């Protein structure tokens, strides 16, 4: 409910933002690339298509059991996190500076991925008997 509402607001905000961008008024978000290396696709394509790539990959992995990619690189969410996590916080989320939120907070996109997915790179969960 709340999230659906947020999505609606996000869509409206995005439309407004793009209008504003056309007008040339609003500053672009600052995206920090902290780790060297090459993204799984050219930056331009990533900017436009990363959501589709992620959704495609998640269905492939979860429903068909495909891990990694035969050629090139898979759009694994854990993969993104390993490369894009901030050096300071170790995470891709939490604060406008963080990689995944840099654009999203600007475009008012709210992800539910972090309800489940661990946003920190190299994190090891502790186990406890329930």
């Amino acid at each position, binding site marked *: 409910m709340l999230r659906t509402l947020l999505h609606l607001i996000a869509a409206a905000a995005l439309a407004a933002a793009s209008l504003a961008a056309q007008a040339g008024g609003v500053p672009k978000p600052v995206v920090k690339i902290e780790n060297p290396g090459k993204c799984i696709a050219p930056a331009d394509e990533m900017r436009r298509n990363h959501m589709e790539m992620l959704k495609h990959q*998640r*269905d*492939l992995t*979860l*429903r*068909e*059991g*495909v*891990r*990694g*990619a*035969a*050629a090139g690189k*898979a759009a694994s969410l*854990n993969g993104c*996190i390993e490369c894009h996590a901030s050096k300071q916080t170790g995470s891709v989320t939490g604060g406008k500076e963080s990689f995944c939120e840099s654009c999203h907070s600007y475009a008012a996109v709210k992800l539910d991925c972090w*309800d*489940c*997915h*661990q946003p*920190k790179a190299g*994190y*090891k*969960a*502790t*186990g*406890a*008997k*329930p």
Partner: protein
Amino acid sequence: MSHNKRRSFLVASAAGLGTVALGVAVAPGIRLIEVSHANPVRPAGQPASSAVRWGMLVDTTRCATGCDDCVKACAAENGINETVADKRQGAQWIRKIDIKEAKTGRQHSLPMMCQHCANPPCVDVCPTGASMKRADGIVLVDRHVCIGCRYCMMACPYKARSFVHQPLSGQNPEVPRGLGCVESCTLCVHRVDKGQQPACVESCTTAGHNALLFGDLNDPNSEISRRAAAAATSQIRADLKLNTGVRYQGI
């Protein structure tokens, strides 16, 4: 089946595969060599195959009352570490059940978890198709599609599923889990896809109990198939004809 024959077969096949390294690294030897045969790593980019059907054999004669190594290992592996005020709302992917035959008084202790049915009722009833069976027989919840209606929990004859009642944090990166979705034993799918065994099986074996055996039920030469052929095994609630992937020996 004689132990010798099995051993020679295994050595041959292990050598053939050339994947002994994994097994040898962790004692006690022979069992794990078998495992490396039973569970080859699938190459990157390839989907799970229906030629395989993953299963588990529980030897209840070796499963001790009060031992919960498998439960602990599961919790550690899958990051089931949240504190819940009302324990009834807590998740349990695997649990130990103590049973006593009413007539004879005979007692058993055994682990209970998702039985990875070939005809899973949870998959039948799920309105969105979030409950699903992978080609290799592993029953999973696609938590990107689960709406949290809990119909599958009503349908499961084993109470194998849990609903996440509260927001979580500190998940294991390989095992995402979170608020409002139904979850259950994944047979450690993230490990199996890497050629490892489920955490419960590994811990049981490492501790020397050897009550759990994981393998391919479709492969007549896998140890699990051979054990199932040699000794009487049973499926729980066999009357429901669900054809479970988890089999029990000794009850």
